[in-house]
């Protein structure tokens, strides 16, 4: 009888394992067949002729050489300032979340406000030194419109943490979003790589 029980238990275990292994193998087969089906053969490149593939890729690529020298020089000056602004506001909001969830202290909030003030003054000063080419005056205008909104946003952020009144935070969010919209107006023309699909 003991043998019978042991035999039954063994059967249970073996059948369980075998089912699970079979289903995993089956699933893998299914998954890989899906992978193959999903590939559009017309887009698959034949790398046996590497030079031909390379030439085709170069033809397809779009380069910044469409810009004039003046435009390119302007873009190179503006790009770091664009990211300075984006960084500044993200650091402020991110630190705000950390503070409100109890993950950082008031000193960190004060530091970030001082840092943002300093950064904004720097960006404003750098922008004033840049002379845009005629074709890119609209880009310059977008940044110049954003600056006063960011300045006021910092004050609202500061006021919220001093008074704990929600309306200041709501106004901060609305105003920074407007300022962000200003600098994002030119994203498609200037920094399209910023919006690559990340998944």
């Amino acid at each position, binding site marked *: 009888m003991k043998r*019978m029980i042991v035999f039954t238990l063994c059967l249970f275990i073996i059948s369980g394992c075998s089912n699970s292994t079979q289903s995993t193998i089956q699933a893998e087969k299914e998954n890989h067949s899906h992978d193959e089906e999903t590939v559009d053969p017309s*887009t698959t490149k034949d790398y046996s002729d590497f030079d031909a593939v390379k030439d085709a890729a170069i033809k397809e690529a779009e380069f910044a050489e469409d810009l004039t020298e003046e435009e390119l020089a302007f873009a190179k000056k503006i790009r770091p300032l664009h990211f300075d602004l984006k960084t500044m506001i*993200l*650091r402020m909001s991110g630190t705000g*979340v950390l503070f*409100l969830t109890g993950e950082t202290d008031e000193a960190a909030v004060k530091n970030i406000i001082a840092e943002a003030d300093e950064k904004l003054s720097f960006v404003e000063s750098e922008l004033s030194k840049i002379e845009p080419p005629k074709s890119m005056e609209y880009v310059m205008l977008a940044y110049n419109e954003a600056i006063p909104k960011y300045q006021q946003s910092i004050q609202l952020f500061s006021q919220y943490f001093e008074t704990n009144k929600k309306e200041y935070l709501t106004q901060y969010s609305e105003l920074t979003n407007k300022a962000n*919209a200003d600098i994002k107006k030119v994203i498609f023309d200037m920094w399209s790589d*910023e919006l690559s*699909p990340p*998944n």
Partner: protein
Amino acid sequence: MKRITMVITLALTLLLGSAVSASAAKKENYSIKLLEYGGIEGYPKSGLVYGAHNQGTTYLPFFYNLIQSKDQNILFDIGFRDDQEDKQKDWVKLFNVSKSTMEGPEEILNKVNLTPNDIDKIILSHLHYDHAGNIDKFPNAQFYVQKEELDGWVTSLSLPDKVREWVWLATDIDHINDLLLASSEKRVTLVKDDNFEVAKGIKVHAAKGHTFGTQALTVETKKGMYALAQDVVYTYENATDYKPLGLGLDNLEQLNSIHKVNNLVNGDINRIIPGHDIAVFDKYPTKKVGKNRIVTIVD
């Protein structure tokens, strides 16, 4: 003697069987549905699987994961912000798709007889803009984000200019502001512990690599446990072949996280729900409602 042995064996079998069903009965009765909210035609396979540079293109679906019990409605990720008036958030232009199938939270949830106000909890797998958009559309939800994710984004801003530019490519400033407003209403939980239980039978698992603090989710159902992976595992191939995704901050961490998800379901690939694989449409019951599909993993 033979008869007695047979009877005992049968009784034992029944006992074992009832023990298994009793354990199943204790599980929470969660349903899991994938709500497709859009997708990209002709997405390069290399974006999904590391090294697949010559393997053509595929359709890339995007999903909210809806987990429901009789008491709770929980979403795992809330997609891209649907703002057709805002040209900066023009789905077609952003993703270079010929025909937009984009639907917003109201439309998507209406298909399952819900509104954004009905959502109790939202777990954000990470803070990329196509997963953490729409925060402002869910006024009653409690949000769960890994603390490491937020810390990572904030500290990475101190990196050298050229480095942080790349790191920050896929993050929308507006979403962080939305998270700030939700924090002021005590609706944001920064998760610090691994295997943190968000609701009975639902746990989040730190699974970084794609971003600083990406997280996966396990859900216990009447059919057993499922791991919802979103961007920890884009496609089944990532999990079966141990290949990192096409995009990630750290490939080694990605593989460790893929291994972790595999371990969470004891290596059973059928228990993993990837974030962007069209295979789910054939693998599970799927129906098209409106512009997109609903996939039922567990009813």
